[in-house]
């Protein structure tokens, strides 16, 4: 029923849903962030695994408090361009930013 152009789009959708479900309504709290970032990656990985595609996945999540600091992220990949891909999802609410990167490598 849900028709996505590419694997990347499907992954992005899965990630957005996972982030929203895990930290959607929360305010940045130093003692909970560790648990949140772990939940986000585990939830994303679980949902991606459920898609049943022949991929190995790497999910990376960064959560940063909003206080004016600058944050820059970059990634480089050595893989098979025809079968492997990635997607980056940037999410924010009033108190924090969340950046999730998903890398999918064909088996």
């Amino acid at each position: 029923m849900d028709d996505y152009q590419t694997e990347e789009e499907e992954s992005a959708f899965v990630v957005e849903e996972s982030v929203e479900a895990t930290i959607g309504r929360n305010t940045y709290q130093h003692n909970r962030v560790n648990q949140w970032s772990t939940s986000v990656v585990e939830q994303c990985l679980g949902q991606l695994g459920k898609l049943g595609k022949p991929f190995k996945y790497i999910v990376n999540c960064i959560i940063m408090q909003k206080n004016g600091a600058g944050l820059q992220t970059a990634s480089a990949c050595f893989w098979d361009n025809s079968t492997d891909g990635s997607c980056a999802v940037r999410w924010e609410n009033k108190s924090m930013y969340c950046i999730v990167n998903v890398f999918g490598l064909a088996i």
Partner: protein
Amino acid sequence: MTGMEEYHNGNEGSFSSEEADAIVKECIESVIGGDDYNQNQVNKWTATIVERCLTQLVRQGKPYKYIVTCAVMQKTGAGLHSANSCYWDTAMDGSCTVRWENRTMYFVVSVFAVAIA
């Protein structure tokens, strides 16, 4: 045939977290060294670091696909948390994460190595 040579030959095909760690630290130090956080340069630094790390890793000639990610954050007192989760073959694949800092910024560089079947 010495014992040391045999040990190295045995490890040719597997991912060495210690080697990757050393490669990453060397790349960061050679690119950043003592520089302070600079918004105009940060883009170029992160790109250079990931590319340089990737090149050094590939040069090892092991049968792996690699992913290198780098996050740089200015030191202003903000909290930063990073987490990774991987769905792969735990016997063959591996990763290593390096945390590095200087006076004005934090770096978190992760290397993921996925074995080619």
